[in-house]
């Protein structure tokens, strides 16, 4: 009886494994194709950014007949969004990034540290409220945010971006709270005995230990801010960033035509900083297992 059962199990597993192996390697092939497609389009973009318009129109898959670096000069003249030139757009992107980074360095840590290491009135209510707010989706509140920012004089200016981005209570604070809870308290206790105050313990002992995780969030925040289109499009129309400039260039091309390679040169300019940052921090971003704790 037992032998028959074993045979049955063995047969089913073998059949399952054969189909699984086939399915696995088929998925692997698709995965390789997907990965190569990204390499391909970036190479395609870079090569065509160095072509003349006629060279591109003749064949976009060949190497440039003449390597036309002029496109990178021409894009400086042609990239424009509501009278903001390339350098102004880049400047706005940098300010946007600085604001995002400033907020990412302070508020989630403050909230996370308070929730992790202290007991205070209302703590349970705050924790529950954050979880409830995270699971109930509010759809279409953009108009409310716009109206509120207009009413408070915080629409279309940097102060509004700074204040409205300074929440801190949410996924970030939960991840930092988990991190701070897991840190040993021996150093802090020694510091307390030596007479250190709360700020000193936080800033000199706990905060530095959260820097590696913060660095990953900041790198991701910088990349997201550089790439962000909807934020500046909806809330900062008079302070357009480089992403808006590039989109405007594309829209102008669709409506009025023009030299695609110049537009591609603009795209390369937008792409390079991100790829450099990604290359430097790829291992750190990939190694961040904090994402996996989202439950």
């Amino acid at each position: 009886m037992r032998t028959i059962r074993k045979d049955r199990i063995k047969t089913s597993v073998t059949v399952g494994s054969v189909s699984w192996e086939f399915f696995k390697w088929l998925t692997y092939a698709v995965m390789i194709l997907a990965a190569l497609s990204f390499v391909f389009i970036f190479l395609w973009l870079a090569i065509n950014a160095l072509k003349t318009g006629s060279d591109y129109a003749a064949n976009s898959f060949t190497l440039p007949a003449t390597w036309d670096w002029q496109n990178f000069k021409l894009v400086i003249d042609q990239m424009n969004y509501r009278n903001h030139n390339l350098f102004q757009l880049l400047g706005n992107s940098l300010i946007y990034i600085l604001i995002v980074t400033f907020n990412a360095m302070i508020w989630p840590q403050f909230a996370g540290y308070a929730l992790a290491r202290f007991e205070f009135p209302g703590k349970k209510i705050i924790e529950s409220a954050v979880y409830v707010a995270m699971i109930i989706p509010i759809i279409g509140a953009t108009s409310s945010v716009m109206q509120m920012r207009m009413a408070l004089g915080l629409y279309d200016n940097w102060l509004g971006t700074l204040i409205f981005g300074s929440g801190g209570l949410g996924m970030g604070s939960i991840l930092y709270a988990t991190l701070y809870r897991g840190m040993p308290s021996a150093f802090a206790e020694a510091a307390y005995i030596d007479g250190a105050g709360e700020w000193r313990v936080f800033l000199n002992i706990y905060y530095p230990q959260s820097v590696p995780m913060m660095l990953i969030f900041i790198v991701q925040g910088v990349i997201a801010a550089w790439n962000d289109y909807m934020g500046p499009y909806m809330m900062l129309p008079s302070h357009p960033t480089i992403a808006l400039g590039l989109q405007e260039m594309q829209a102008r091309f669709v409506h009025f035509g023009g030299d695609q390679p110049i537009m591609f040169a603009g795209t390369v300019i937008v792409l390079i900083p991100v790829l450099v940052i990604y290359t430097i921090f790829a291992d750190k971003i990939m190694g961040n297992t904090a994402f996996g704790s989202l439950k």
Partner: protein
Amino acid sequence: MSLFMSKKRPLTGMERIRRRRTLFAMLLIAWPVFMFVFAQVVNMNMFYMAFHSYSRVDLDPQFVGWDNFEGVFKMFDQAKVVNEWQAVKNSVEVGFVTLCINAPVSLLFAYLIFSKVPGYKPLRALLYLPCVTSAVVLVLIFRNFFDYDGALHMIYQVLGVGDKFPANGWFVQPYAWTAIQIFNIWTGFSQNMMFFLSSMNRVSDDFVEAAKLDGATEPQIFFKIVLPLISPTVVTMLTIALASVFGWGQQSLLFMDSMAASEGAGAIGLTMLNLAKSYNFGPASAYGVMLTLIGAPITLCFRALGRKFSVSEEY
């Protein structure tokens, strides 16, 4: 007396320390709590705005009753050439692609990288590229590739099927939406793949090793160990993905600009964005309220159902 004092003193000291710690914690969290409450006020303001009209110059609200909701219902009038049903249909399709194509693909890709297939490190780095690349850049490349004078047309011609290429390119009716959906599939698995992979990396090797020693096959390890252990993360990510479907619209905007709806590439999220951007705050809020009342229960039921079938969060 001195005995009484000596009993009291340490308590006073402890209390002082406790009070100092409480004050410090409240000082740290004061601004985040204020902004959190303010964010909820902003969300609730949408319900108030749904019953008011706002002019662009004057933000003073005028009570209009159900007018904004009537305005939203008029958008669904099928007598109109461009009506909102198309946007609803498209958003449902986005939901289908997100949950039924991109989610399983990201899960499978994550598992292959987790099981260290050949070249898993460079593959992981390359497959994450859509997450670090601006949507504007990806759309621009994709559009120029698919457009009438783009590389895809050339490929059609080389293959001898040039006449099969849409005469006016891909970014007009009825091809535009198909092209955008192809783009969604192409770029949509990356973020969740990384979340799933991070979650898989937290699964203890002991579980996998013990299963292997017991003779478990790879499908058994995937379905009986890895998938159940990461199921809380899977449910959370899918819930977030489902909720985001209601606000989805950026890609259509980037691809089609103001032509999205007329070329059959609208979406409900885009309609709301366009209403807000054109300062039609009342109708935008009314539409938001309606979608929240429909979307929130759907999302919460999905989450509750998912949690019922997922394992405990503690492992």
